[in-house]
């Protein structure tokens, strides 16, 4: 019975992680987003777009030279103060992607981060559902162990 619980939890977890995320189809829009960079943050820190949008990203450096490298996309901009850098791309992958400063800009440079959130972004809800499932499964596993006669209880 306990083996069945383990197998069931693993199977359901896989299903939760791999099932397509429900989302209403949206037409891609043109988005122009200006990101200002200063030691050690981007403003806005979080950029939200929808899958299918064509994003024009403009980077402005306010103090020293900064870069913007986007995880998951082939985007790497460098801006020196007073000049803008720009690029356009279609966001075709949903999720949360880190924007990282790619030019050494000071002591906290490796921690100069921002986020591009491409909706529908379901990673957290999927993970939370898997955590709930794992918690319930573990408790059930313990309960079944508790009900077996003393001495047979696995620990």
């Amino acid at each position: 019975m306990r083996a069945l619980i383990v197998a069931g939890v693993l199977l359901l977890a896989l299903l939760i992680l791999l099932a397509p995320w429900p989302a209403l189809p949206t037409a891609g829009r043109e988005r122009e987003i200006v990101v200002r960079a200063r030691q050690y943050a981007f403003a806005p820190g979080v950029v939200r777009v929808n899958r299918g949008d064509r994003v024009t990203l403009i980077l402005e450096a306010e103090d020293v030279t900064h870069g913007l490298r986007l995880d998951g996309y082939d985007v790497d901009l460098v801006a020196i103060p007073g000049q803008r850098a720009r690029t356009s791309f279609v966001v075709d992958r949903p999720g949360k992607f880190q924007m990282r400063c790619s030019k050494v800009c000071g002591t906290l440079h490796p921690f100069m981060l921002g986020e591009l959130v491409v909706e529908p972004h379901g990673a957290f809800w999927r993970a939370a559902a898997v955590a709930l499932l794992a918690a319930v499964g573990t408790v059930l596993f313990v309960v079944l162990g508790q009900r077996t006669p003393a001495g047979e209880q696995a620990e």
Partner: protein
Amino acid sequence: MTGRPRPSSEAGAIRWELTGWPILGWLLRQRALNWVLMGGALLGLLLAVVAGIVGTAAGSANFGIVFVWIVWWGLLMGVLLPLGGRLWCLVCPIPAPGEWLQRKALVAPPLHGIEPAPDAAQAPVETGRRTGLDSGRRWPKALRSIWLQNAGFLGTALFSTIILTRPSVTGWVLFAFLAGAAGLALVFERRAFCRYVCPVGGFIGLYSLVSPLELRVRDAGVCQEHRTKDCYLGNADGYGCPWMERPWSMERNAYCGLCGECLRTCPKDNVSLNLRLPGHDLLVVEGWRLDEAYKAFIMLACAGIYPLVFLGPWGWPRDWSNLASVPGFVLYALAFLGCNLLLVPGLQLAIAALTRQAAGWRELPLRRVFVALAYPLVPLGLAAWIAFTVSFVFANLSYALPVLSDPFGWGWDLFGTRQLFWQPWLTGLVPALHTAALVGGLVLAIWTAAGILRRFGDGAAMLRGLAVQSVALLGQAVFFLWLYLGAT
């Protein structure tokens, strides 16, 4: 049934003896093993200290920052600690100079054996042997806990934004660790620094309780019969336990540095290195202590604060923790310390009280339940630290390649890798690793909670307590998942 917690039982525990594998058994018994590992690591540490102090101020181009806070930290939290517990303590170079001075030897065992104390089995000789330069003084009784390590970690963590990003500060902090360990080795017996002072050793010890690796005696009965206690006192084959542990009664990894001295000194060949199920030590009732409980709270709190400060999209926590302004830092310090010392312990106290209430165990002292129920937070906390570590290690590991060729940032190109550019690695894999680590930590945490609650009682009462614990642990795991995967 309720009452005093039942002692843990070794019966039925699954173990695979690694020292039964001849090559590994032989290797671990070699005296030169520790010297080679610690000596090699000491060279790396000295390079980190020198590079930190005299090298470039740009952290991402300095060996001290890159190899300590990215390479070493990633290896420690991602591999060594979860799989090997205190395995790093076998390699750690910080106590090496002090220990070598203390023993007046690099590799050689003591020149002579020790006369067995007639009552060694009941009350083994407490002081270390004075074969070297140490005064053989015992560590003060009032400080025989990990409270000092808790305070040291909290102090270091409060200033971590400064320490982790300024090469010169990293260099001086590492030097202070080396000097402190050497100084204490000359005053006190054995490895007092590692056991009672090292802020890193404190949390490694706590998290080693989760590890599947253990060093234990094979048969406690053999030790009962054996009166000379060579493992504690030493003999011509090796030194008495540098960690002041008594292997014959050791049930937990927390204070065993895996140095292997007892493997060498045991004349009965009664010590083995084993693999076992992870988390076994968390259920050892005799080990539950308030100082360790607070260590679990501090580590959990820091694992929640660090992603907000270092990995979040906001600049102000970084500015405040980076001493950009004094009022900002004061606010940060108050929030940081309040979270560590009041908020998280207060929350855990409330959860412990609810658990006791739900189980109907009103006669059990709340303090006892509070301390015991800190231990399910150990696997969860370790999982949260692994999640934090993978977030920045994969993104920044590529700094290591140019730094290898140019450790001081002076324009050298020793191995032809200086021109390699920074490039985040495997960042697409990181969300899956976050989920795997935190869900795995949650499962082990609930499993541990069940084991602990069983020590207090059985049946429906235990299950009611487990329900409260599971909801609380699930809530904390989901909070960490939100930190990493949620849209902030």
